[in-house]
């Protein structure tokens, strides 16, 4: 019975899984995970957050901790979480705009962090 080779979802997801594993293995073989600085001989550190927490570090750098590290992150997460209800009460356009604004500000801070800490210093 003729049927196209990659017809079923399972097959497609399977191929995606193999590609993902291959990619992950390639990264693991090519780029060792960092270990940081030993704590046996303490030095004065310029501590940089892992990239995932870059937006946090940017907020902390320029704002007082109660605002940058507590209030704003809570507001941002609450905003992202409430997307379905924003859309319900404010309409699709505004709901998605607010989500887009919050998410892109995270990405913006991430790029800011990377530029500041990783690429230019």
């Amino acid at each position: 019975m003729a049927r196209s080779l990659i017809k079923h979802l399972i097959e497609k997801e399977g191929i995606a899984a193999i590609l993902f594993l291959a990619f992950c293995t390639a990264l693991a073989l090519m780029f060792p995970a960092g270990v940081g600085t030993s704590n046996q001989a303490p030095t004065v550190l310029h501590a940089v957050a892992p990239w995932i927490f870059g937006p946090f570090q940017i907020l902390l750098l320029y704002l007082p901790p109660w605002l940058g590290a507590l209030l704003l992150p809570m507001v941002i997460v609450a905003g992202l979480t409430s997307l379905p209800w924003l859309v319900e009460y404010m309409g699709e356009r505004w709901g998605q705009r607010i989500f887009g604004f919050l998410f892109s500000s995270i990405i913006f801070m991430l790029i800011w962090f990377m530029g500041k800490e990783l690429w230019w210093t």
Partner: protein
Amino acid sequence: MKDHTTFINHIRPRSIPSRALSVFYTFCLGGLSFLAFLVLGITGLLLMFHYQLGESTSFGSILTISSVIPYGGVIRNLHYWAGQLMVVTVNLHMLRVVWTHSYKPPKQLNWLVGIALLMLVLFLDFTGYLLIGSQESGAAATVAVNILGLIPGIGAGLAQSIFGEPSALSGSTLVVYVWHCVVLPMILLLLQLYHFWRIRRDGGVRPL
């Protein structure tokens, strides 16, 4: 359609909407996130054989794993990269859900579950970073403890129950270890299973 009434039918349904077969609808991002989770579980378990928790031992054992234990380096790198990629795939998956408006009723509960999953993944990433036991991890733990300490009343207690008492030179404490290796992965696994079950309950992955 009584497809989802029994467990067997749930995991092996007789029919699913043809639209759900399109890779370009989901880009497999949810499935890949789960795959990354499985890779992390397996490699994490292997790392536990040789990781030695302790303010003065964690860092050294990471070095030993990376360069002395056979295949230790590649296992640790796999754990690291799968963790980084999981953060990426989960975020892209969330964007896909927004793009296809899949957060709308009846799927809003699963959206909430998703946000919880995202937070757990980020927290797992952070606790993993602390377990390296480097000076950087000590600095990170100290910042986190100070931030939580800002919460009036419960802050200090909260910080201690999440991070223990990390020193400025190493973030690896027993409390962090238990969160990272046992509690968070368990909660993440259970929530993911619930997430998958809800997808079917909410009518499956297809345009609303």
